[in-house]
């Protein structure tokens, strides 16, 4: 082929149309320049990605580039830009506080109240992690919100948690005494805490908002293996359950120690066509429920039946309170569709809190 040899060196200067070989050269220089300048962020991103061949290759390639970038000081450009943009490297999702006080609105109809009990686990659920010491006492009883006693509800989680946050925001919008803070962040979870450290972030949020209630819904990104130090923790193994369970427990303990009650919302059934396995969701849910039982002041809400057909199967459409079919799940078969699904989930969560702590929200 002559497409690169025919073009003499540096002929791109002053020429609009260039040879494919020179385009390739320019593209490679562009890629290498970008890699060197952005190596630190790319390396961090690779480290926090799910374990597997892809991550191994990415880390192996990016580690020496990041070191070279740091050695010649190129990473300072990225750090400087991050500082200028107010990104100091600590985790911190965008917090959208929706704290307007509203007048009281309708309460959920009793027939739609879900059970606030652990889900029935199937044979795919792994054995529960060994018991660990729990707090002797939970938070003080939740006082009925009312005039002079407004409360803050902090909602955290991943992108499915964001959907729940929208539902809670809508359902409680008319509650004059409940301030909802939606702080769920997409692409997060408890497996890749190198990417986003929820236990650490929750401490910050608890100190910031002093919530009386913390609602957690995450796990959609957690069906993955991860490293702890140099140790590989395979998904679903006893070690995974121990470590992941400890992270769940830490979030529960932090919240209850601060005086908040916790509603931990389980993962819903996923579409057979979705990229998430239902067996993994069952494993996670069993673990959430087991940890909830060990922590006073923590309730677990199973959403499995809530977002499934009577036969327990996934469905994108379900009847709403008035019997009309509504779309409850997004086209990806994973996320909760708004407003049908988010409303259903939000009302279920509010009802669960009312039943668990004997309050009216």
């Amino acid at each position, binding site marked *: 082929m002559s497409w690169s040899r025919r073009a003499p060196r540096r002929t791109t200067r002053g020429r609009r149309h260039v040879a494919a070989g*020179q385009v390739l050269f320019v593209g490679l220089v562009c890629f290498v320049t970008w890699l060197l300048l952005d190596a630190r962020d790319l390396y961090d991103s690779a480290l926090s990605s799910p374990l597997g061949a892809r991550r191994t290759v990415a880390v192996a390639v990016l580690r020496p580039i990041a070191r070279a970038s740091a050695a010649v000081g190129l990473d300072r450009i990225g750090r400087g830009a991050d500082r200028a943009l107010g990104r100091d490297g600590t985790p911190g999702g965008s917090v959208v506080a929706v704290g307007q006080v509203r007048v009281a609105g309708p309460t959920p109809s009793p027939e739609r109240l879900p059970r606030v009990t652990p889900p029935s686990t199937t044979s795919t659920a792994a054995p529960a992690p060994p018991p660990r010491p729990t707090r002797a006492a939970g938070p003080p009883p939740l006082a009925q919100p009312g005039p002079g006693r407004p409360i803050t509800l902090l909602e955290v989680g991943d992108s499915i948690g964001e959907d729940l946050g929208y539902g809670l925001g809508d359902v409680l919008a008319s509650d004059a005494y409940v301030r909802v803070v939606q702080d769920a962040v997409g692409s997060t979870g408890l497996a890749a805490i190198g990417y986003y450290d929820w236990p650490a972030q929750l401490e910050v949020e608890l100190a910031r908002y002093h919530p009386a209630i913390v609602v957690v819904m995450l796990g959609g990104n957690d069906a993955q293996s991860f490293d702890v130090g140099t140790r590989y923790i395979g998904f679903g193994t006893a070690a995974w359950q121990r470590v992941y369970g400890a992270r769940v427990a830490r979030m529960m303990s932090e919240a209850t120690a601060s005086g908040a009650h916790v509603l931990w919302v389980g993962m819903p059934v996923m579409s057979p066509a979705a990229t998430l396995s239902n067996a993994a969701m069952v494993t996670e849910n069993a673990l959430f429920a087991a940890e909830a039982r060990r922590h006073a002041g923590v309730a677990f809400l199973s959403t499995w039946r809530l977002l499934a057909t009577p036969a327990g199967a996934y469905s994108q459409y379900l009847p709403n309170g008035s019997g009309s079919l509504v779309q409850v799940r997004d086209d*990806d078969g994973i996320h909760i569709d708004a407003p049908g699904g988010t409303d259903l989930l939000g009302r279920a969560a509010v009802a669960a809190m009312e039943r668990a702590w004997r309050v009216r929200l």
Partner: protein
Amino acid sequence: MLFPTIDFAIFFGVVFVGNWLVVPHPRISRVLVLVASYVFYAWADWRYVFLLAASTLFTYVGGLLVQRALSDRRRRAWLGASVAAQLGLLGWFKYYGFVSLSLDNALRHLGVHGTPVPLVAAAALPIGVSFYTFMGLSYVVDVYRGTLRTAPFLDVAVYQSFFPHLLAGPIVRGSELLPQIARSTQRDPRRIDLTEAAFLVLGGLFKKVVISSYVSSAIVAPVFSDPSLHSAPEILLAAYGYGVQIYCDFSGYSDIAIGCAKLLGFEFPRNFDRPYTARSLQEFWRRWHMTLSSWLRDYLYVPLGGSRGSRSRLYRNIMITMVLGGLWHGPAWTFVIWGAIHGVVQCAGHLRRDWRRRHGRPELTDTPLARWRQRLVTLSIVSFAWLFFDANSVNGAFSLVDRLVTTWGEPAPLVRLPVVAAVAGSLALQYLPHGWRAAVEARFVALGSLAKGVALGVALMTITTLGPSGVAPFIYFRF
């Protein structure tokens, strides 16, 4: 596979080298592009490659049968069958749930309580199905009209699946792309417009990763997801903001697609031409998603009769075109209403122009002040319609409209100077004269290869740094 990802960067690098290495070999060249396109499509979900293949088969066989039919009646019959097959695929995968749901609810309102219409539990919407279906339809119709000769199967397969346009357009016509595929051996590997391609790709990335993402997270997503929690000033800013977000997102994607195709030696038509400078809704549609609007014009509006005949027929044709155009965007009543708003306003525009003509006045007042007023009014109507386009539901859209009118006294914490500046600045950028870009491109052209690469690398780093953390591009997460 999405454009702003490392996966795509590596994929494209490999395809770029292979594409130019096999240029002298027409068959290998086509097979390479076809395989690359199917890999690209299968990256997210391999099962949908069968849908793409089926659509391609319908296109090819439909074109062949239409061309070989011996009588007009048979030609029409084969055309109808081919269109029905294509629309059947689209309808099943994109509209079945919507139609069943609407039917079920309508029956309930009429008091008919029977077994619910069966729903497909697991069918997820295949990406890009609307785009490649429309490309297939245009091919068969063009063959029927005699404006296009049928092409070999391999060419049709490449035409319909060519990865730069596969997921989100532009909707390229057979008459535009098939001749390029047929002449692919004549592409000159020494004449690649690197400058224009690089500006398109990086400009598209900037629009998508930086502007669209920022405006979305700062104002649009919070307001549209929870209308009841936001005040009128926030909703107003979100409406204009969504206009900026969707323009930057969609035109950014189109720019990247056009740039990538250009690097491989193919030319795509433009898809956007500064739409928010339009002085009327008709002009807006000549500048917005141009390949879709011209498709709707040529394959729906004109066959319906277009502007021929009475005024009532004209209004009917406009409404049908705009409502179906709205529905093309998604299976929801919000899109139907969005299309209807555009249709009604265009009809009103015709009525107004007719009235002005009857009274001996020019169709549009053409003073500088009037021009700016017309632009502002058009932008505001388009922005108002976006409320329906992006709302979660019809009720959500009306809630936005209601609060836009009634909540002016409430606090508006999301209306902050950086957000207002981003929205206003992005709109103002549409008024930049064409010359500025030519001047910047001329400076770039004057650089040597090494300097060009470094400049592009720095630009790329700036984009990834300015983009919010968590944007899909360079983080390996599924959500």
